């Protein structure tokens, strides 16, 4: 049976997380349909059609889908789902918001955050902040699954030429309305896609001091992340949080600065290829996962590091 993947997009561009979800779908089967629900999302559908491995794009373009309100999008997906063996989405804030709603309407379980596809009905997924990996099997007729993007290498964005089929829209639920969005603006790469991430914790002491990390990040072409403590203290916006209940990242290089290394933080970054920790406490648990640990005062070490790297450019 075919696999339905829900595209993550902002009506203007297809989000890269979609490519990871398509990659997961390819581990299950080869007839992959990508649903683009949005408004003015023709361009997204065209991009979706080019994704390697996608055999059909379904475009539902209507005001009801503009803000991806799950009250409106879930019935659309449910209407389509009967024809599919699997419904997948990336485990982004949109995927997590939508797919459980879809699953419940289909009276099936939802499988969150899969790390691997063992077979068409069996998946692995992290539990207990990634301290345990469970292998779960579903007996449901339709498997509704969210995909941990860092666990699947993205499908190529180019190479496909799928046909685009236009779907009729259903009426909006009228139960929810979009009011506003406050998106964090940044010139830096997106946290979950960046090759290098520089994260700061409570040790940074203030939002102002994050400038030190931003300078380092800009030298490296990196994204900036944070621990929960730094977000809770208001140093940086919520979307910087890396961890069990924040974003999951797995860059080539992760630099943790003034972060102790609580399991909830490690859950979000311990699959990074190389981990560097800068912390003045040599007993900090972050050093147990760091490839390179520097026991130092960050206020001295970070500017030094930025200067040293700048020298080489």
């Amino acid at each position, binding site marked *: 049976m075919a696999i339905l993947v829900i595209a993550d997009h902002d009506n203007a561009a297809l989000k890269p997380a979609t490519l990871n979800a398509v990659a997961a779908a390819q581990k299950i089967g080869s007839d992959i349909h990508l649903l683009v629900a949005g408004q003015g999302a023709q361009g997204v559908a065209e991009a979706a059609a080019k994704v390697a491995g996608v055999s059909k794009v379904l475009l539902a373009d209507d005001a009801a889908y503009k803000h991806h309100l799950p009250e409106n999008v879930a019935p659309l997906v449910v209407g389509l789902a009967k024809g599919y063996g699997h419904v997948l989405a990336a485990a982004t804030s949109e995927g997590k918001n939508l797919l459980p709603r879809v699953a419940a309407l289909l009276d099936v379980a939802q499988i969150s955050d899969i790390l691997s596809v063992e077979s068409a009905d069996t998946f692995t997924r992290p539990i207990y902040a990634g301290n345990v990996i469970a292998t779960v099997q579903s007996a449901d007729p339709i498997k509704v699954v969210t995909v941990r993007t860092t666990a699947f290498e993205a499908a190529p964005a180019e190479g496909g030429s799928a046909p685009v089929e236009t779907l009729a829209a259903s009426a909006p639920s009228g139960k929810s309305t979009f009011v506003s969005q406050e998106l964090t603006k940044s010139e830096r790469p997106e946290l979950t896609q960046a090759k290098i991430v520089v994260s700061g914790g409570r040790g940074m002491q203030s939002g102002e001091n994050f400038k030190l990390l931003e300078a380092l990040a800009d030298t490296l072409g990196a994204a900036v992340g944070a621990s929960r403590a730094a977000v809770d203290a208001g140093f940086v916006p919520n979307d910087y949080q890396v961890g069990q*209940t924040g974003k999951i990242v797995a860059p080539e290089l992760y630099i943790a600065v003034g972060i102790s290394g609580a399991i909830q933080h490690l859950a979000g970054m311990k699959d990074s290829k190389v981990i560097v920790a800068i912390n003045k406490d040599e007993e900090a648990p972050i050093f147990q996962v760091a490839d390179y640990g520097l026991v130092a005062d960050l206020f001295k070490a970070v500017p030094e590091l930025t200067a040293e790297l700048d020298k080489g450019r």
Partner: protein
Amino acid sequence: MKVLVPVKRVVDYNVKIRVKADGTGVETANVKMSMNPFDEIAVEEAVRLKEAGKASEIIVVSVGPAASQETLRTALAMGADRGVLVQTEAETQPLAVAKVLKALVDKEGPTLVILGKQAIDDDCNQTGQMLAALLGWPQGTFASKVVPGEGTVTVTREIDGGLETVELKLPAVVTADLRLNEPRYASLPNIMKAKKKPIDTVAPDALGVDVAPRLTTLKVAEPPKRKAGVKVADVAALVDKLKNEARVI
């Protein structure tokens, strides 16, 4: 308006999790258990709504073994009015919990249900969305701000790119994120008072809900351990390692 808050009893977030030797599950014998941290935030939000005169009664619900009484008592000590224990020894998966909660919502008639966004044991992040679906209610997930209005509730949500605000028609489901509030500690007098607050116990059957799991856990295992690396003497040594050994910059 009545507010219903589901609270789950989970392994405390500070406990180092151990997988049972036979790979069938996680060691829970003699392990500290607590209320799921997100549910503390949900209870706190409900209590604040009551203190602000916006909520009339707070009902807390837990689905799980008899010991979940303790979790309900904690919520009562924080300020909830009464508890319902839906007692089962079965593993509680989100769809089953959502069905139990729907049955209770049908019975109790709350205007708002506030759940945690995620249980820190199964890390599912599903139950609130599922409950909203089953009820046909709107959902405000990952909430960092909840403002009830006339027949509506305005919810600010933590999303990947920042914040989003939606307005939901009541009745509605909200799930609490970390920044919604800072939960209080129950004071001793309130803990004493909570002992007298009522807790009803019902069986899932009595609610007409089949809680049998849909997913079978074939096995659980520890992930590959990451080895600690080396400590470097100074920034110059670090840069050298990153360039010449790890080759990541």
